[in-house]
């Protein structure tokens, strides 16, 4: 692995060497390293590109890293990864994709991740997207995440896209059974002429199921973002969706939260707030000795932290 690839790995997965536990590293469309453990198996699919990650019931305190890196210009990579999380397991999964494109052709990675979370299993899923390289070729990432959570299961999903991705369409769909819950924290910063579209659809099918979808984003320069979030309350359930965005320069953000209550005991809330950085916040930090640009940076970094 060369230094560009190592840098991409560090950016998306904080991996500086071989990760601990189970891992699968995909580099420029092929396997660059894999490790399995007694409780976590990783199997290459035979019918299409991608892998199955199979976690045995009651596996606790283990992690799986499945980073994808692209450093060849003009590569279009598409994978199907399926995660089977056994009953009562409690694991952390770190995914992510880094693209380094210094050529003139577009590089694209489209990942379709499907989670089957069994009863009372807990998953923390972290996904970072990052792009770099000074070529004219676009860096494109289109992740799709499909989540099925069984009774009492829990998933916490953190997605971060801070830099360098020119175009992204991010689709997330989830269905939840009795007592299952889903928490999503999305952080996006776009700049230049980038576009980012995120679509969330959550079906709260089970009694006492709950979902909390929180997005914080910053749109700088001429970038554009669209946030669509839809929660269907089909039973006695609780759902909350929140979009909080800062716009700067000529950045544009559209937030479309929507709720459907299909049961009398469904309790659903949506919130959306978009605006530029408040002048008084800048002034306060300037009275501490920061320049206006430094104050802006602190406010944005804090907002996306």
């Amino acid at each position, binding site marked *: 692995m060369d230094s560009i690839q190592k840098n991409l790995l560090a950016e998306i997965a904080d991996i500086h060497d071989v990760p601990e536990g189970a891992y699968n590293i995909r580099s420029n469309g092929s396997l660059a390293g894999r490790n399995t453990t007694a409780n976590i198996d990783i199997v290459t699919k035979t019918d299409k590109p991608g892998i199955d990650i199979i976690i045995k019931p009651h596996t606790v305190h283990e992690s799986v890293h499945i980073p994808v890196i692209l450093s060849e210009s003009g590569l279009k990579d598409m994978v199907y990864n399926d995660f089977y999380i056994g009953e009562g397991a409690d694991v952390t999964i770190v995914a992510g994709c880094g693209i380094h494109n210094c050529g003139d052709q577009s590089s694209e990675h489209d990942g379709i991740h499907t989670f089957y979370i069994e009863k009372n299993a807990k998953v923390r899923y972290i996904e970072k997207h990052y792009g770099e390289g000074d070529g004219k070729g676009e860096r494109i990432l289109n992740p799709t995440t499909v989540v099925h959570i069984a009774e009492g299961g829990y998933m916490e999903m953190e997605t971060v896209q801070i830099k360098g991705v020119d175009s992204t369409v991010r689709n997330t769909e989830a269905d939840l059974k009795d007592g299952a819950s889903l928490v999503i924290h999305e952080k996006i910063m776009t700049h230049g002429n980038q576009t980012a579209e995120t679509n969330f659809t959550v079906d709260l099918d089970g009694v006492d199921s709950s979902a909390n979808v929180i997005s914080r984003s910053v749109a700088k320069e001429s970038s554009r973002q669209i946030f669509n979030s839809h929660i269907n309350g089909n039973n006695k359930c609780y759902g909350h969706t929140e979009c909080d965005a800062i716009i700067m320069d000529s950045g544009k953000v559209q937030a479309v939260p929507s709720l459907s209550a299909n049961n009398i005991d469904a309790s659903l809330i949506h919130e959306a707030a978009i605006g530029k950085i408040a002048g*008084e*916040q800048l*002034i306060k930090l*300037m*009275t*501490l000795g920061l320049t206006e640009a430094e104050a802006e940076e602190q*406010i944005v970094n*804090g907002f996306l*932290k």
Partner: protein
Amino acid sequence: MLELKDICFQVSEDTEDKEILKNINLKLDDRFIAITGPNGGGKSTLAKMIAGIIKPTSGKILLDGVDITDYSITDRAKAGISFAFQQPVRFKGLTVKDLITLASGKSISVGEACSYLSEVGLCAKDYIDREVNASLSGGELKRIEIAMVIARGTKLSIFDEPEAGIDLWSFNNLIQVFENMYQKINGSILIISHQERILNIADKIVLIADGEIRKVGTKEEVLPHLLGTSEACSTLMDKIVK
């Protein structure tokens, strides 16, 4: 030493020019100066002007003999002026530790950040990682605002009505914070206040009403004047109405 020379500030309201500050001349070289007077008299405008948030229409501001009238907010902060807002600002995502660290201007340990919070009567471990957002009460925000000024430790610290928005019981504790600060601080404190207990510890009191300085002197000199004038009535009325 802070010196204000012929400071005027006008705003245009509809087609009329309104004078907010009229020919303010003031030399402030004491350790603890209180500015008092009725609401709407120009006190906060003057404080914001010293911090650089508002530019005077005419006149000069000198800090230790250096003309800082054209300095930006940032330059004045670097020159040694700190300003605690009357209404502290909330930040989504920034924590108390982040703000104290930014105020101190260097990377500080959790222990150091905590010591500043303890000085304003906050139990540090409960607050240090809290976000400075709507989950904090007005009184808590006010104390954090004061802790930031202490962390800066500059030669001039300005407080704009620290008592505003704080209940009477909390304010009694806050008085002690200022009494301690008076003992410890190396520079000068300029505080805008209506509170008699704050005025009592001031070396010098400046009475401002209708955009003009009405009286400057020790509390013995100013307080009787304050109580014997129509301003006193309106100040008292303000207190009652509040």
